[in-house]
């Protein structure tokens, strides 16, 4: 296993609660990268934004009966040190206010994401 400590990964998630099966893997990869000591951020934009509304991620179960929901994974991501951020402009699209977001999410604008993309060692786009 290579020492990958400090490498920067940016995960861009554009899928949300309307397509539940497309929501888990990006979060899971982000947690894996954090476990490998990388510096990881998930950027939620477009439809990806709506899973950050309080109460939504709990409704999406990884596998029926598993008891593991998308909220479980988002909490694991935060525990693992993954930074969660959301596109301010797409929050407007979903009529979401800062107080509607789950705890631990940072609101960023479009210029910030361009900076982050240029600064990352790798961008994973979903």
């Amino acid at each position, binding site marked *: *296993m290579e*020492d990958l400590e400090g490498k920067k990964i940016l995960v861009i998630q554009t899928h949300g609660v309307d397509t539940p099966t497309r929501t888990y893997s990006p979060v*899971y990869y982000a*947690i*894996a990268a954090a*476990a*490998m*000591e990388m510096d990881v951020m998930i950027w939620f934009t477009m439809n990806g934004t709506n899973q950050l509304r309080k109460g939504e991620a709990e409704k999406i179960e*990884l*596998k029926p009966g*598993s008891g*593991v929901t998308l909220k*479980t994974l988002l909490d*694991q991501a935060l525990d*693992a040190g993954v930074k969660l951020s959301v596109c301010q402009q797409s929050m407007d699209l979903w009529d979401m206010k800062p107080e509607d977001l789950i705890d631990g999410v940072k609101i960023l604008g479009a210029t910030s994401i361009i900076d982050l993309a240029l600064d990352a060692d790798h961008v994973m786009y979903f």
Partner: protein
Amino acid sequence: MSDVGIVRGCKIPKDLYYSVDDHTWVRVNDDGTVTVGMTDVAQNLAGPVLHAKVKKVGLTRAKGKPIGTVESAKWVGPIKTPVSGEIVEVNEKVTEDPQILNRDPYGEGWVVKMKPTNWDEEVKELVTGEEAIQKYLEKVEREDIKACEHIE
């Protein structure tokens, strides 16, 4: 076995040292090295392990840094070393047959051997014997950790 405590069905051998919060154990070897692995509680929380990666021999790790990663269908995370030191041996079987971590977490499923660099100090933060069982009991009750299941 009287030398193994049972906490909600999870085995906690009394002769090992534990970092209860990180779910890892340490065995002190005669040659001055220590063996590190993940506990029965950890394997149970993770579920059947699908993939595991272990860091390389020669790498020096500070306490709390990962010595490997473990993935199951529902969880992925680091195995954090409870002691600082140099990795002197890795268990290749863990990579080849990751469910060895589920089947035999304290035996065949050991993860690395390390040459500790600050053992005398760091051992004070670990627990062993009856104290370890008590601490684990408190943790599983506080966090309502499910009872251990064992796969063959």
